[in-house]
């Protein structure tokens, strides 16, 4: 067994295999970044909508809240299949990468909007009243007062979620996107030892995730200590 692995290791890291794995790693990263980036923007929109005051906007608030509640209660794999078959029904030529990214985005919207909301709600009400007594519009209050004060609350958990989204993208291999996990399956099918291949893939995921975990933890500590001063 060990002998077999020892024989395979040099082959696994030969030029083409290494490039294949690195590319797959890039795909995983790109999917996550685009999905989460868009998710964050749209999550912001969701929060903005659900905090719009007034009777007239009740339906919009309901839609925004329902979206968040629903998409945090469906497994990512199920979201992925739904997006896959829905998009294939309306646009059969959509690439699998696009489909997977949309899936990640739909999920990320729901989770990031909750982080953003918690951040916004952490800003004391008096700050908002002071702004509104000075004739700040809702948008100007958000941009000039709420957002700058809430990002220390938003950023650390955002990193934690980023890591969990990276890990969730492993499921995207199920619909055939050639990302890290799929690359592992391909190598395994080519006859490489499963222990070796999946062990390597696991390490590659770790290399993507761990720095983000550390950075999030570091920022959390920093923000917390700057608040005590």
């Amino acid at each position, binding site marked *: 067994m060990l002998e077999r692995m020892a024989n395979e290791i040099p082959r696994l890291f030969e030029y083409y295999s290494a490039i294949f794995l690195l590319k797959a790693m890039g795909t995983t990263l790109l999917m996550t970044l685009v999905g989460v980036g868009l998710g964050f923007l749209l999550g912001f929109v969701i929060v903005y909508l659900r905090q719009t005051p007034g009777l007239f906007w009740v339906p919009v608030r309901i839609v925004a809240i329902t979206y968040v509640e629903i998409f945090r209660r469906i497994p990512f794999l199920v979201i992925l299949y739904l997006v896959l078959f829905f998009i294939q029904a309306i646009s059969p030529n959509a690439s699998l990468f696009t489909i997977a990214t949309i899936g990640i985005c739909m999920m990320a919207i729901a989770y990031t909007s909750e982080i953003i909301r918690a951040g916004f709600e952490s800003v004391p009400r008096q*700050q908002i*009243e002071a702004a*509104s007594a*000075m004739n*700040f519009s809702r948008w100007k209050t958000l941009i000039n*007062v709420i957002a700058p004060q809430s990002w220390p609350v938003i950023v650390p958990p955002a990193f934690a979620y980023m890591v969990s989204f990276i890990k969730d993208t492993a499921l995207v291999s199920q619909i055939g996107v050639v990302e890290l996990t799929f690359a592992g399956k391909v190598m395994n099918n080519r006859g490489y030892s499963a222990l070796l291949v999946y062990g390597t893939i696991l390490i590659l995921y770790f290399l993507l995730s761990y720095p983000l975990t550390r950075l999030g933890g570091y920022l959390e500590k920093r923000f917390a200590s700057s608040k005590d*001063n």
Partner: protein
Amino acid sequence: MHHLKITNLSSAYGKNVVLTDVSLTVDKGQVISLVGPSGSGKSTLLRVLVGLTPPTGGTVEIQGELINYNSKSSIKLSRDRMAIVFQQYNLFQNMDVMGNVTIAPIKIKKRDRKEVEAEAEDLLERVGLADKLTAYPDQLSGGQQQRVAIARALALQPDLLLLDEVTSALDPELVTEVLDTIRRLASDGMTMIIVSHEMGFVREISDQVVMMDEGRIIERGLPAEIFDKPTTDRAREFFGKILRH
């Protein structure tokens, strides 16, 4: 024409009625002090005036113009004329002193940045903070923060300044510096409504003292009248307690 005319103003938080039939006039250049026990509705009155808490009845006219508190644009117009300073200063924590004072004139009133900044420096000089332009609120003492808050309100060039217990969150030694600032504003002819528990100060600075209790005005008059010959038992009791301290 009165500068500000409040007629039969009422307000409530849910079912809890906190202002009942409050009527009050303020003339240009006058300083009116609101006194009264905790929970009597002083803050609420100021909050209603600037449109932070909706009234349930009555009218408010500023310089002869009726404020419609159901209309955002009407509230906005009124806020161009009055500025409020809160007990807890409520400075924007993410901006330095200069940012706090200039943001509304620049971003909201769209005035020229250079001009606003020059004015802000003058204002901060007047409140004795010329050397703190780049400090953040959490680097300032309470008294300094409160003076920044006053400068921020003045930068809006209001016709009427509302001050809500601006010294009650401060340590005793910091109170004087803030009171001095207000004194100077009064002698410059600023029209003000002041909520305060500093009775000596109220007596010295006010043109009229108004006493509230349970959401109503129960007594009003010149400081000397109110403090020395209160007509109601409630007022006598209140001043008896406060002045003994």
